């Protein structure tokens, strides 16, 4: 009799937990058609983790560098761990998280996020953090990122955060509840359309140009981590015209890089060499590169990586070839799909 009662309660508890789990999966945003940036972080975990180069940073990495080009033309296997407005501590913890799985030769960090010293927007926090698997890195990233009204519990049980979405569920939420096709190409978010850059606004005058202490704190930590792990760290600044990159900021970065012996490539300053043309190489008037722009700067980077850093060409490795084959196919199909979508030839 007593056994029966206990069994009854156990079954109830299991049913409740399982149904809550499904419900949670259901109401979480899938980021498939609308804001695909929200999916970027999670896609990494399905990969074969044997990358030579890991990019970390915000949109200036995931929209501007194409790992496919690095592979096809240089034999460098790379992955981008970037997301929308990824703050520097989020990049740091994401790097920590990545290093749990693999040890690349080079880590490339885009330094734009040095400009943010404090948590910015809850929505971006969620897009960056929700996709991470649970680890101490994720916990610390959440703690460092929460804006005033956020609660840690909302990250542990995302249903608490997204509960009101029951009202706007669509077919997408069921189709992609557990599994969804990749939207990015090794973390690269592709756009092929063109919107030329015109009238670039000058930057507003700031009261203080020094990057915040918090930003420096995490930059130091990143440098230390890479040293400890024996990974070469490279700083980049993508050729985005906006947010405005102040000369004062550039100075600080150059100084920091020199001081720590870190290679620093500012793509804003070598537009001639990369051949970036803001009339055709951007899809949003200079904020981000489109495919043609991204491929141009990726080639420049590829030259540096193989010639100066000396990364070897791994195109001969059969295993990697097999991995890349379908990726390249999907990449090319996506180009065709987008050309049709935007009515380009």
């Amino acid at each position: 009799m007593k056994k029966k009662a206990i069994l009854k309660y156990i079954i109830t508890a299991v049913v409740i937990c399982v149904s809550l789990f499904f419900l949670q999966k259901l109401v979480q945003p899938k980021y498939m058609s609308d804001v695909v940036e929200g999916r970027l972080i999670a896609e990494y975990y399905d990969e074969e983790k044997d990358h030579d180069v890991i990019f970390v940073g915000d949109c200036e990495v995931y929209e501007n560098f194409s790992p496919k080009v690095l592979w096809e033309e240089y034999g460098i296997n790379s992955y981008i761990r970037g997301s929308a407005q990824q703050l520097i501590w989020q990049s740091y913890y994401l790097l920590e998280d990545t290093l749990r799985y693999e040890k690349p030769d080079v880590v490339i960090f885009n330094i734009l996020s040095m400009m943010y010293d404090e948590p910015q927007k809850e929505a971006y926090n969620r897009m960056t953090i929700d996709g991470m698997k649970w680890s101490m890195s994720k916990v610390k990233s959440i703690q460092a990122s929460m804006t005033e009204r956020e609660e840690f519990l909302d990250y542990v049980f995302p249903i608490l955060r997204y509960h009101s979405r029951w009202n706007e569920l669509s077919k997408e939420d069921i189709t992609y509840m557990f599994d969804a096709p990749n939207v990015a190409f090794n973390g690269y978010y592709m756009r092929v359309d063109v919107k030329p850059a015109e009238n670039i606004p000058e930057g507003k005058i700031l009261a203080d140009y020094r990057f915040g202490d918090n930003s420096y704190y995490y930059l130091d930590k990143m440098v230390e981590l890479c040293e400890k792990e024996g990974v070469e760290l490279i700083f980049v600044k993508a050729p985005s015209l906006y947010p405005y990159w102040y000369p004062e900021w550039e100075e600080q970065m150059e100084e920091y890089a020199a001081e720590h012996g870190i290679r620093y490539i500012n793509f804003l300053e070598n537009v001639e060499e990369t051949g970036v043309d803001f009339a055709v190489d951007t899809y949003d008037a200079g904020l981000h590169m489109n495919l043609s722009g991204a491929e141009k700067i990726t080639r420049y980077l590829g030259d540096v990586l193989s010639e100066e850093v000396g990364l070897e060409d791994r195109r001969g490795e059969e295993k990697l070839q097999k991995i890349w084959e379908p990726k390249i196919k999907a990449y090319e199909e996506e180009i065709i799909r987008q050309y049709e979508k935007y009515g380009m030839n």
Partner: protein
Amino acid sequence: MLFTSYDFLGFILVLFVLYYIVPKKFQWPLLLGFSYIFYFLADPTYLIYIGITTVTVYLLGCKIEQFREEQSAYLKANKEVLSREDKKLYKNKIKSKQWKYLLIALFINIGILAVLKYTNFAISNVNSIMGLLGSDKQFGFLDLALPMGISFYTFQSVGYIIDVYRGTCKAEKNIFKFALFVSFFPQLVQGPISRFSQMAETLYQEHSFDAKNVCYGLQRILWGFFKKLVIADRILTAVNEIIRNPDEYAGAYVFVGMMFYALELYADFTGGIDVTIGVAEVLGIRLAENFNRPFFSKSIKEYWNRWHITMGTWFTDYIFYPISVCGPMLKLSKFSRKKLGENLGKRVPIYLSSFTVWLATGIWHGASWNFVVWGLGNWVVIMVSQELEPLYAKFHARFHLQSNRYFQFFQVIRTIFIMSCLRSFDCYRNVPVTFKMLGTMFTTWNWNILWDGSLMQLGLTMTDYLILLAGTILLIAVSMIQRKGKVRDQIAACPYAVRVAIWYGLFLVVLLTGVYGIGYEASQFIYNQF
């Protein structure tokens, strides 16, 4: 710590677990500790005020009790020698000493409450009078923190010491036990105002884990959250929109606002009390009920017997009765009966003391003229209906409608409407605006807003309205079922699967449709190019 915060849920969860793990004699000290932590987390300086109240009322209560013990010992020892007269004399002497100590306690505690709560109100009135007299001198407002729950714990303590004085309850000798009575955290925020004699029964007892109690308590908490999160916090948006922009929302909007506010206040207040009583129930402690389906009242007087009951009885027991039966009042009664005739004269003292009660009730709710007018408005309505009583009697004798269901329904609706009108005084900015807005109900004829889609502009969507509608129907249905006894008893009698489905269903409703957290706003997620 808001009842609806994760912190509060964590807080009570830890308490519940500890409460049934620790040796039983540590249960009430644990509650005391948690209550003080609760208070400390709100603001450490509050502890000073609650500390003063606790210590003064405790000491003076003991003192009054001591006199009583002295008296009975003396009378017992000198039973043979004392004459009737001597005894009476001695008793009066003791009584007057006790009275002195009672006065000190009342002075200190009501004094603190009055100073903290009403100083700025007094200053603003003095300022406007000075302004009227043509003086430029204005006093600055004081920055006084009103400690959380001070109105409630002060009333509870004052009730206690009056009871000790009256001899209806014994003074608590253990200051820590008394401190728990004053600070018991679930009821600190919004009542109920408990009586020591009732609460002491279960507060200090040792409680063993009782599955039924715990389940019932948790169920009640869940029901409270449903009222608060699904209904009150949802409709709040529309209520605020209407009452904060009186220039935009006149006429029928005022009516809509009043009705919405009635729903909001009911769901918010009774929901909060459900959480309070539910938390206590999990701990095995019985608190007094504060509501008895108030919106089913057929008159304002009945309404006040069913809404915020513990406050109503507090005012009746500690203000209305003492004033009504004090010597001068009885003399006045005699006098007025002689001068005004038996019928009218009899009512003069009653009206006078209930005037005082309603004035006090109003000002207790908030330090502003809005609440004064609100309180006295209630008084007027009750007095008018009292005066019309003979007329009603005649009417009923003629038409026999008293047991007619439709007529009862009319009475219920009428009560809700009158109460809603009165309540609008605690919504609008000030008294003149309230009168003006109530007036527009009759001058601005815009009832078409009820169906032409204007209600969609108040910040609520169609889904919100549907949820509110369904929620209100559920509230009414539950109230109807309640007439047959405790709803939880009735559910508990169902088969296991049905029970689980009901409570889990309610939990899901709260989880999904509750208004809490940052909420998913799609607009926030539109990537704006950074």
